[in-house]
């Protein structure tokens, strides 16, 4: 018997987004996750704090040395202002499109429509930080300083900051309010190198496999096998080799890695032949039509 209303099984939320270039190729951008972005922001906060402390110490030392108290005070006020408002804007307007914190975490800001990131967009997304973070913070700060235990106001301030801080979690593109206004989003930048070819460059003879042994698996299993081979962990190799041998009824020859490499090559060649004929076998559950 079926329940009239069944919960739909939802897969893990994917952060990959279609992004079609003018040439018509979908680049499949990967968005920065909420945790990564929070970490980047905290790093930036830390950097700003460090710079502020260094600036303050430098100015105090200068103050002791000279007696230009006015000029130094002005310098500090302006330095503080630029740090607070300019840090994010100036770094994001640069060629990398990222603050130091974002660069450490491998993120960058790009326009959602793929066009150039304009100064207006960068200023808009960062000016919004004022009401997202600094306003509730200073609100709570002044509350604490006054010692007025007004429960309503505290709750209001907490709700306010909660809404804005958690805003990225409530939409699928992880947009801050600033991103919403500026039409930007934060994507991951990956600087990988090309992994070596698993199939080419083998001198010795290869094992051959029966048709039945090769029709066991599809693309998903092939790519999982690729990960296992590239990972190179012995226990994983042993487990996978044992499973495949067991299923296909192949005797153990003591060389797990060699066996798996050859099986990978043979399976890959077979599945690619299928691709050329327009048959893509997604996983082992799909019917084998090779």
């Amino acid at each position, binding site marked *: 018997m079926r329940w009239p209303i069944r919960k739909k099984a939802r897969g893990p939320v994917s952060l990959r987004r279609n992004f079609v270039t003018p040439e018509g190729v979908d680049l*499949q951008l990967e968005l920065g996750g909420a945790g990564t972005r929070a970490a980047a922001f905290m790093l930036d906060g830390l950097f700003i704090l460090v710079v502020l402390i260094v600036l303050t110490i430098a100015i105090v030392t200068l103050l002791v040395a000279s007696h230009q108290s006015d000029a130094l005070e002005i310098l500090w006020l302006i330095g503080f202002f630029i740090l607070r408002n300019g840090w994010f804007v100036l770094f994001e307007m640069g060629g990398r499109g990222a603050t130091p914190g974002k660069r450490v975490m491998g993120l960058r800001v790009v326009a959602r429509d793929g066009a150039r990131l304009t100064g207006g967009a960068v200023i808009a997304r960062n000016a919004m930080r004022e009401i997202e973070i600094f306003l509730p913070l200073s609100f709570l700060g002044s509350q604490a300083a006054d010692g007025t235990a007004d429960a309503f106001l505290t709750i209001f301030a907490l709700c306010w900051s909660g809404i804005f801080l958690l805003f990225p979690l409530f939409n699928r593109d992880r947009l801050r309010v600033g991103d919403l206004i500026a039409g930007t989003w934060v994507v991951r930048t990956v600087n990988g190198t090309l992994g070596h070819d698993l199939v080419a460059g083998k001198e010795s003879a290869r094992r051959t496999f029966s048709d039945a042994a090769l029709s066991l698996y599809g693309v998903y299993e092939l790519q999982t096998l690729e990960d296992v081979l590239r990972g190179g962990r012995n226990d994983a190799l042993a487990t996978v080799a044992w499973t495949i041998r067991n299923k296909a009824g192949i005797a153990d020859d003591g060389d797990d890695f060699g066996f798996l490499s050859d099986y990978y090559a043979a399976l890959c060649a077979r599945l690619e032949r299928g691709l050329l004929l327009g048959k893509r076998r997604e996983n082992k559950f799909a019917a084998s039509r090779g």
Partner: protein
Amino acid sequence: MTASSAILEVQPILVNATRFRKAREADWERLEYLVGRIEKRSVRALSDEDLLALPLLYRSALSSLSVARETSLDRALISYLEQLCTRAYFQIYGVPTSALRQIGRFFAKSWPEAVQAIWRETLVAFLLTVAGAVVAYLLVRNDPTWFFGIMPEGLSAGRDPSASAETLRATLYGASKDDGLAVFATYLFTHNAQIAIFAFALGFAFAVPTVLLILYNGLMLGAFVAVFVPKGLGWNLGGWLMIHGTTEIFAIILAGAAGFRIGTAIAFPGRLSRGDSAIAAGRSAATAMAGAVIMLIAAGLLEGIGRQTVTEDRARYAIGLTMLLGWLVYFYMPRKA
């Protein structure tokens, strides 16, 4: 069914990925090297030859990606090409122009255009300021205790209804040997700039907090005027306010108008979708807001230096009105499309 895996003579199985890698890998590596150099340094680090090759290499990598997705099952290859193409894309299409050109464009075009685009909101913000000032003026004239309800304690600095005419006059023509004044002017600049940014950002809440902020700004102005006028210092206060006030109050009005723009664009998107409307308004309003901060720098200079050196009322009026005229011409002068 015990098929052992027999070992045969060498018979290389060339999968598509292998063939593909052999034919194209050199191109990909060159593109990766070029993109890496741009990312680390700048486009200027490339030779002319490399610069010409870059778009070709990028397109060839894109076509490799399309082909690999259709014919190859080597996941490492596909994800490598994806990230290589993405990096190249952002270096070719997504990078902002050089800082100098951006600044030039900002002053020549973006700023006045952004200000022109919010003329209605500017008018509303101006009227709100005037209304606030008139109300506060009337209130304080009728009952001076209102002054303390309107002004925050720190800002009046002794210039309240209980002060004598001499003290008030002294604050208007304060001698430049007063050490704290330059610092105070800087403090006022950073404070005002922060208020301008707030006025912009708070516009997000359907402009309601921005309206209150602008109204309050007008209230403070009116209350201030109401202290000086009864002591016969109205004309003198005018000069004192004008010299930097035309720039400063105009800047605050513009920042408020930028906030209104965002709020109304979200509340009433018109024919656009709400998201698109917010983006269009946000980008141009942010430009106007950045301009307001620059105006506040000018106002700070006028306040800190100009007002200390120019103590003659008529000169103060002249400077203030010239600044106002200058801003108006700069913003609203008709430009060629």
